[in-house]
C-alpha cells in the first residue's frame, strides 16, 4: 500500500504542511473511438533516461521540471534510473524498468490489438517536483504539443 507513512520523518513533516495543487476545473477528454484504433503514449515520472541523455538534476530548486523523449523502440533494459529520490525503493524498477515505464507491455498490447498503435516517443521526467510552476507552465504544454503532433490519442501516466 502506498502511504505517506512509508516516508522518513523529515519527508512526512514536509508533506503534512505541503499545499497540494488542486486541478480546478478538471479537464476531460472522453474517448471517442475504440482503443483498438487509438495510439498510446507513456508518461512516466520514474526519471529514466537513455545512455546518451543527461540525467535529471536534483540540485534544481523546486525540482527538475525537464523531460526526456524516449524513442518507442528503445530497449527497456537499457534505460537508466536517474531519479534522485531516496523516498522509495528503486530496486524493482532497476531490475525491470517495465515496472514504471512499461514499454514492453505497450508493445504487447499492440500485438494483441488491444490498442491500435504505440506512439513514436514516450515521455520521461523526474517526479520530485515540489514547486510545479515550470512543469505546468512549460513542460506539460510542450509534452502535450509533442504527443498531439505524434498523433497520440491516449496516454498512460505512471508515477513512482
Amino acid at each position: 500500500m502506498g502511504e505517506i507513512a512509508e516516508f522518513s520523518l523529515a519527508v512526512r513533516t514536509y508533506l503534512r504542511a505541503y499545499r497540494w495543487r488542486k486541478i480546478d476545473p478538471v479537464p476531460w477528454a472522453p474517448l471517442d473511438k475504440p482503443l483498438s484504433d487509438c495510439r498510446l503514449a507513456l508518461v512516466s515520472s520514474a526519471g529514466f533516461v537513455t545512455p546518451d541523455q543527461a540525467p535529471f538534476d536534483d540540485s534544481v530548486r523546486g525540482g527538475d521540471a525537464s523531460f526526456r523523449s524516449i524513442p518507442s523502440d528503445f530497449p527497456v533494459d537499457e534505460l537508466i534510473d536517474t531519479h534522485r529520490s531516496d523516498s522509495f525503493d528503486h530496486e524493482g524498477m532497476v531490475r525491470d524498468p517495465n515496472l514504471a515505464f512499461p514499454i514492453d507491455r505497450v508493445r504487447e498490447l499492440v500485438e494483441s490489438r488491444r490498442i491500435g498503435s504505440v506512439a513514436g516517443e514516450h515521455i520521461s521526467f523526474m517526479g520530485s517536483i515540489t514547486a510545479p510552476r515550470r512543469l505546468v507552465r512549460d513542460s506539460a504544454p510542450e509534452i502535450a504539443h509533442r504527443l498531439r503532433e505524434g498523433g497520440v490519442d491516449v496516454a498512460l501516466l505512471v508515477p513512482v
Partner: protein
Amino acid sequence: MCNQAVSLVAAELERRGIATVAIQLLRDVAERVRPPRALFVPFRHGYPLDLPSNPARQHAVIEAALRLLEDSDLRPPALVDLELPGS
C-alpha cells in the same frame, strides 16, 4: 510528489484532447490534486505496476487502467480503486 506531477501533466494532456489515465499510489493526494481519470493502486512507492519481471501482473494493472478510458459513465475527477484477485 510523483503523484501530483503526473496528475498535472495529465490535466494538460486532457485540455489538448488526449484522454489520459493516471496511476496513483497515494489516495489522499489524488483526492486533493484531482487528476481527471485515475486508478488508485494499493502498491508501495516504486512499484506502480506491482511486481517487476511479472508481465501478467503488469498487464492486469494496465488493463484495469485502460478500462477506465473506455468507461463512458465516468465523470471528472474520476478516481477508481484497482480491484484484482489477490491484491
